């Protein structure tokens, strides 16, 4: 392949060139070729810094390849490829371009060797991805997209501010370890945190992803947050506070996910939970933990894409992804149901499925470093994942009580994409060595020890048993009231109940604060409109005498000021 060519450029330029190809098979084939070519180019590049560009009076390193960036860039290409196949039947140029431009920007970001290039890609990813939400072309999606864009642009601005401060203080724009204490480090940390959906900075994710199109949600789920995990791993590896943040991230979405009815929103919450594991890995910062974070990001992109694809197929065929309206779909969509369960098994870390091989790296690292409290919380979070993602998603969509919906099986191209993703999930689970080989640090870890397998199986088996018993005895209502079960479950663990209560109180306080904020924002806008609105004093057409009066006043003021 071409020496020193940035794979991101293949995706970015190719996505625009794709518009020239006639809609239909030829454009699809062209788009399919782009991630393949990009991945080949990536594969052919040796590690090191390749492209340097002079711009804005700075030397930019636009292409830096090492173990960390390679793993992320590779899985981004795979995700882009799966999305192209999944969207084979799509005839919407907006989504087609955005569906490749946005991955291109994300690849550019993980290959960026300096902070300015990172910022440019960061912003391109923000701007290009919002079209995947807007492409649904509903009022609701438009508004959600706008809120999403604001959050993303805010992240970009913080990053820019941090980079400027850093550049002014140190004269360097290199993107290596930054640390919280370095000049501008705090701002950059928050910028990364917004994209990584840190607790309290996470709302854009649950808000926007479920409003995206069928394909859009699949594409969105792969890139933005993982790009942020990469940026954290590059800039803030070993930052102690990340362990706490990540643990919190892994815990809190569970409470939401169990009471959520929109199954794609459930998946959005479970993204937070999975990201929590990765953030903990980055926070621990040992080679094993970082390997775990990277490996888990790799696996997460694949199984989360698989789950979003299956829910997308349900949305396409059944017209809804609300748990209360679905059920019994396995009769109509048996293949989708099967593939969805592969995804569910992967996210729940069943042995022989991908997360088992990757999540255990992070847990092992936490144990070795003596982070026992986070370790226990993560263990609990693993059980929670099984509840809301592993069981709830397939159960309510495909089983539970029969909703009477009879529809077609998912289209063939979607099945192919899901099949490929499922194969990769199982592949990583069965042959973890292949994934371990491309991680930044050498891995000396075998997930398939007897203790480990048995512990995990026990965890899952007891969860499943509880679930089965509750359904049998009718305690588990198959519909929306599943909320009750989850709180029942918590009540039997008093500590957790207290935590949940405290969380609820904090939540109410937060909501109250939000309402207060909204109220004052509304009042602020009204006050602004009074003066700056159409008929406000600042916008009105003034009599000429008044204009001249201002000129004279200012002249008088200047004369006095200058004479003094």
């Amino acid at each position, binding site marked *: 392949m071409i020496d020193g060519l940035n794979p991101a450029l293949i995706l970015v330029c190719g996505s625009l060139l794709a518009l020239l190809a006639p809609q239909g098979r030829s454009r699809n084939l062209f788009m399919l070729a782009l991630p393949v070519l990009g991945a080949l180019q990536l594969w052919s590049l040796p590690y090191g810094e390749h492209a340097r560009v002079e711009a804005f009076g700075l030397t930019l390193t636009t292409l830096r390849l090492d173990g960390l960036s390679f793993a992320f860039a590779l899985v981004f290409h795979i995700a882009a490829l799966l999305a192209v196949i999944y969207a084979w039947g799509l005839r919407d140029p907006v989504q087609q371009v955005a569906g490749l431009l946005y991955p291109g920007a994300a690849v550019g970001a993980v290959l960026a060797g300096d902070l300015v290039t990172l910022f440019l890609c960061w912003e391109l990813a923000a701007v290009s991805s919002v079209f995947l939400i807007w492409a649904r072309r509903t009022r609701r999606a438009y508004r959600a997209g706008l809120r999403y864009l604001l959050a993303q642009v805010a992240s970009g601005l913080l990053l820019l501010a941090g980079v400027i401060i850093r550049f002014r203080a140190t004269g360097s724009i290199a993107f290596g370890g930054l640390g919280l204490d370095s000049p501008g480090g705090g701002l950059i940390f928050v910028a990364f945190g917004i994209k990584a959906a840190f607790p309290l900075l996470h709302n854009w994710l649950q808000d926007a992803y479920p409003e995206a199109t069928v394909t859009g949600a699949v594409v969105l789920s792969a890139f933005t947050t993982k790009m942020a995990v990469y940026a954290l791993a590059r800039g803030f590896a070993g930052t102690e506070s990340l362990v706490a943040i990540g643990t919190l991230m892994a815990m809190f979405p569970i409470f939401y996910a169990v009471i959520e009815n929109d199954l794609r929103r459930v998946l959005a919450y479970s993204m937070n939970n999975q990201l929590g594991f990765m953030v903990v890995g980055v926070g621990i910062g040992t080679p094993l933990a970082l390997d775990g974070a990277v490996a888990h990001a790799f696996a997460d992109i694949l199984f989360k894409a698989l789950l979003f694809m299956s829910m997308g197929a349900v949305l396409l065929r059944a017209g809804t992804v609300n748990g209360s309206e679905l059920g019994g779909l396995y009769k109509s969509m048996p293949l989708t149901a099967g593939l969805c369960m592969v995804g569910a098994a992967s996210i729940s870390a069943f042995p022989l499925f991908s997360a088992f091989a990757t999540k255990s790296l992070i847990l092992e690292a936490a144990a070795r470093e003596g982070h026992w409290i986070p370790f226990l919380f993560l263990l609990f979070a693993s059980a929670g994942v099984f509840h809301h993602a592993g069981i709830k998603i397939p159960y309510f969509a495909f089983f539970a009580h029969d909703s009477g919906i009879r529809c077609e099986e998912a289209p063939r191209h979607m099945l192919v994409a899901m099949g490929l993703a499922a194969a990769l999930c199982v592949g990583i689970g069965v042959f973890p060595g292949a994934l371990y080989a491309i991680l930044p640090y050498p891995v000396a870890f075998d997930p398939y020890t007897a203790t480990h397998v048995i512990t995990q199986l026990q965890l899952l088996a007891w969860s499943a048993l509880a679930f089965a018993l509750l359904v049998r005895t009718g305690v588990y209502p198959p519909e929306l009231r599943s909320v009750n079960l989850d709180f029942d479950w918590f009540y039997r663990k008093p500590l957790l109940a207290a935590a949940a209560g405290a969380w609820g109180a904090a939540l109410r306080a937060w909501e109250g604060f939000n309402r207060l904020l909204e109220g004052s924002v509304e009042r602020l806008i009204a006050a602004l409109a009074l003066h700056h609105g*159409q008929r406000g004093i600042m916008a009105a057409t003034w009599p000429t005498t008044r204009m001249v009066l201002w000129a004279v006043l200012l002249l008088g003021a200047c004369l006095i*000021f200058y004479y003094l």
Partner: protein
Amino acid sequence: MIAHLPALQVVIPLISAPLCALLPAGRPAWLAAMAASWLAFLIAALLLYQVLAHGPISYLMGGWPIPWGIEYRVDALNAYMLLIVAAIGAAVASFGRTIVEQRLSLPLNKHPWFYTAYLLCLTGLLGITVTGDAFNVFVFLEISALSSYVLISVGRDRRALVAAYQYLIMGTVGATFILIGIGLLYVMTGTLNMGDLAARLPAVSGTRTVRAAFAFLTVGTAIKLALFPLHLWLPNAYAYAPSPVTAFLAATATKVAIYVMLRFFFTVFGVKFSFETMQLDKILLPLSLVGIASASLVAIFQTNVKRMLAYSSVAQIGYMMLGVSLVSVTGLTASISHLFNHALMKGTLFMALGCVSYRVGATRLERMAGVGRSMPWTMGAFVIGGLSLIGVPLTAGFVSKWYLIVGALEKGWWPVAALVLATSLLAVIYIGRVVEVAYFKPAPEGQRVEEAPLALLVPTWALALANLYFGLETSLNVGVARLAAQGLLGATP
């Protein structure tokens, strides 16, 4: 020939103006105006090239030596300004003829007079920029102002007459203030040549007369460049003038006024006197900050897109004056390069709006519903111009905002840098409103709108692409601006 370029820069449009009036209406008059504009652009480009290669040019009108004759003096700053004015002039003149004339309230046989007025305005703006004589500045100021009143008043909206009248009053007050300032300086020094003025002023700088001159020049130029709160003439004048006129004036007239201010305060009075003794920056800084915030907010609430962009211009002028009040090379570089970049972005936006009003017949927000789909190329250019206005990376607008923020941080003015970033978000809102209506609102029933004709799209897209080009390749817009800034601050390398 080459030696006479500074004179030709003014003389060619000046002679072409009456020529246009004599030519038959229709194509001939338009062609003459276009030829003169493109020639002026060519000359400006050659002048800039010469200045960059060989340093400042001094040209004596008619060979009269300096104290008696008029000197035309071209350094990096005016060569740069000449290029901006002439380039926008050429782009606007290339705007299709039928379209321009459709927007006028004149009978067909009077159309050549429109081109005469346009060329006179161009002459005036180029003359202000090229001359090195203070009184000559005033003369050209009046030529450009009087002709621009005419240009505004021929808009089809009847409110254009009132707007032109108000502009006439304010413009005259401003020009008179400038004249009084120049007159006082003449009394104190006995010369009108800027170089001589700069040499003789320090001896008399303690006097009240010179201070009064300084005050008159401050307010006079502030009116002409529409500094908040003296901007009140601007929104209506821009909103009701014919679209090509708005594009031309918005991109050039206020910029030239800023040039006059820079020239007087940095070159004639000198940095030390203007900013250390008189502390001009103490006046400019608060006014520009309030102007940025207030005008951006007003823009958000406007329903006429042209008026909205006019208010956004007031805010952008605030950015330029903010850069000036930093009194540093970086701040001035930001200001001067923003002169260039803002001319590009506002030129693009107003020309795209011209396309919209040609097809839709109005620029009110609600009438633009659905034009994103029916006029994809026009709105594409609008979006590029809008992104540049917001200051999105890879556009020209980003470059000048970057330097402005860096300049503010150099001084340690955090809140100012934060305000610049926050007001960029306000620009996201008001540009976003237009994009929302154009792309996401369905077109009204029965409205059939076609894409604008090629004659409109080509100049519009030329400017739109320039926005992208100068966002990446900044050696012209920032490189020369930095040279000019260093020249003004006396830190010539």
